[in-house]
């Protein structure tokens, strides 16, 4: 079934099964449960996790591996069960970005990724208990870091 919704990015027609349910909400937005992942071409690879219930709410998100090439963490079993995940590819992992006026000040949240299940269409913002990942990493620094890692890998080949 296709339904029309008003989102921060305008009116969108989406299939009901593309709706992502955040039963526990997102910290700070606990009352909002229904979201959709919008992928407008002109902001790629930044996507928008847009609320279907409040058209002022849309989080810019991207794949953390694009920013930190060696990004990884393990999900606890209760969460993989909740999300119905059988293999890592069943999940879409996204990081929320904060984009202020100055491009140099863009930050990415690597500590609390958004995890979306492609199996049962549930979503959750998960907090990784690790010193490695912080709520605010400067995008600029992360991209530099990944560049160094990737070129070191290339030299090693």
């Amino acid at each position, binding site marked *: 079934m296709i339904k029309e919704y008003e989102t*921060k*990015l305008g009116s969108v027609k989406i299939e009901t099964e593309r709706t992502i349910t955040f039963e*526990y909400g*997102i*910290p*700070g*937005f606990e009352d909002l449960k229904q979201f959709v992942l919008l992928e*407008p071409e*002109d*902001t*790629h*690879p*930044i996507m928008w996790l847009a609320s279907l219930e409040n058209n*002022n*709410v*849309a*989080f*810019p998100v*991207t794949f953390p591996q*694009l*920013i930190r*090439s060696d990004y990884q963490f393990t999900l606890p079993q*209760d969460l993989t069960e*909740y999300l119905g995940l059988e293999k890592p590819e069943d999940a879409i992992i996204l990081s*929320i*970005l*904060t*984009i*202020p*006026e100055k*491009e140099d000040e*863009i*930050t990415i*949240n690597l*500590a*609390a990724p958004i995890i979306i299940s492609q199996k049962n269409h549930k979503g959750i*913002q998960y*907090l990784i208990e690790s010193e490695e990942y912080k*709520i*605010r990493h400067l*995008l600029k620094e992360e*991209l530099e870091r*990944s*560049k160094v890692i*990737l*070129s070191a890998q*290339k030299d090693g080949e």
Partner: protein
Amino acid sequence: MLILSRKIGQSIVIQAGNRKIKLIMLEQDNGSIKIGFEAPKEIKIYREEVYEEIVKQNKAALESDVNRLRKIKTTIPKLVKRDDKQNS
């Protein structure tokens, strides 16, 4: 605020509807207390300052507008494409 006094090894039980959360006082060391939690798995337990930081970042993320994003979009894809070439 309710104030309860507990010894190491003793617990506090919080009941909300049909859910119970148990807090166990485990260890005390130089002004810091270790607390164990037993709660239904759907109840998330956070350190307050960390939770508040996530809330703050999520709220700040909403200030990002689409037009500003269109301007900066080149930053990430450029690097990604260059990386693709490196890999191929």
